[in-house]
């Protein structure tokens, strides 16, 4: 992608009708390490590869719970992701306070989409440089969404974002028949296998560098290091 004279402002269209700043913002998720989400008839699994700056540094957290029934994985500018996480948590908590019930995930995501869209239309603002995978289980069942700096949001059966995410998407595509009827454990393994396809030749998944969360009728839960290890060994 090269510079042109219509890309310095988010509020400027190009003659082709594009908003280049928004498109550049959408590029930022490709810089992040890969995150995946996959949804069966009963569960949603979010899995992510965590990066660390070096052997002396801890791994950067990629998956966050939003409420007892849903959570997110982020790819892109982590600081923006934290801000959006804070927003989602507040909205979910607000809903609990007013309605005494879990917020429907689609409504939560649409609120975020509207918030993102506003940043594509205001002078002086920049769009959020992070894309989220939002997954959980609410009164309508297991749901999986992807959000984007443009303010669009999409619902998926399986999705992946981040570096070399395309290989994970191709993996899901090849295995899509298996997804719907998968058990919880099978779904986690599918997510792991998808993550593996994104590694470079000499890389491998290690339990310490993986983050997994599962959402089902009993809620959204991030797996502990021991539980992740069990999946590795099992």
């Amino acid at each position, binding site marked *: 992608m090269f510079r042109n004279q219509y890309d310095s402002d988010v509020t400027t269209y190009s003659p082709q009708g594009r908003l280049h700043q928004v498109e550049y913002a959408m590029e930022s998720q490709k810089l992040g390490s890969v995150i995946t989400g996959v949804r069966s008839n009963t569960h949603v699994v979010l899995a992510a590869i965590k990066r660390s700056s070096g052997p002396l540094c801890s791994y950067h957290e990629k998956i966050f719970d939003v409420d007892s029934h849903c959570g997110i994985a982020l790819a892109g500018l982590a600081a923006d992701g934290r801000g959006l996480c804070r927003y989602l948590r507040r909205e979910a908590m607000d809903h609990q*306070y*007013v*309605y*005494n*019930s879990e917020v*429907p995930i*689609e*409504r939560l995501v649409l609120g975020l989409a509207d918030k993102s869209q506003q940043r594509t239309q205001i002078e002086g603002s920049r769009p959020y440089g992070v894309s989220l995978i939002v997954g959980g289980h609410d*009164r*309508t069942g297991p749901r999986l969404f992807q959000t984007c700096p443009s303010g669009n949001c999409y619902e998926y059966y399986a999705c992946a974002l981040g570096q070399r995410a395309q290989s994970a998407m191709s993996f899901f595509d090849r295995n899509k028949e298996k997804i719907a009827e998968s058990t919880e454990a099978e779904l986690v393994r599918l997510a792991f296998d998808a993550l593996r396809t994104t590694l470079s030749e000499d890389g491998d998944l290690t339990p310490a560098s993986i983050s997994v969360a599962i959402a089902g009728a009993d809620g959204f839960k991030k797996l502990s290091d021991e539980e992740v290890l069990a999946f590795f060994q099992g």
Partner: protein
Amino acid sequence: MPPITTGSSVLAIKYADGVMIAADTLVSYGSLARFKNESRLKKVSENCILAFTGDHSDFQYISEMIEDEIERDRFIDDGVVRSPAEIHSLLGRIMYHRRSKMEPLWDTLIVAGRDASGTFIGNTDLQGTVFSDDFMATGYGAYMALPIIRKKWRADMDQQAALGLLEECLKVLFFRDARSTANVQLAKVTADGVQITEPYRIDQEAYWEFGRQVVGI
């Protein structure tokens, strides 16, 4: 702030098929029986009813607010509709908020309905108190009808038994509550949705029989 046009008791019970709610059709203006055919039971969604004791105009305001909430659900069109329990919680927050501003909506409200997780009857009032139960009565009903309901209510009452229990309570309330009438309305929320009857006169003739035996008054 003090209530001006007011409604009296409301009764609500769960029964085998769902929930049943009853109230008379009187809205009083102090001691004047001003509006004798006013419905105090309002359908707010396909599976929920709202009813009030207290100020009529505040209830009208509240009903509109809840109807707007349901309408917004319809516009979002994602298959999610506010359950009676959620409406109850929302109302409780609104009532508490208003009382905290020293501007209460002067009502005791009953939210009754049915959804995928079962039947629900909730109560909230001008102070923002919130609770739910298997049966409920507001206004004078809380003093006169509840003891009767407590004695006779069963979770598996059929429609006839439930109706009989409510009508008995309505009779007692008509005899003793000076701000009530014999013209009443019943509503039920079952698997078939919300049904509100036309107002009808409860039969009190048989009860006045005892009058013939009274001597010397």
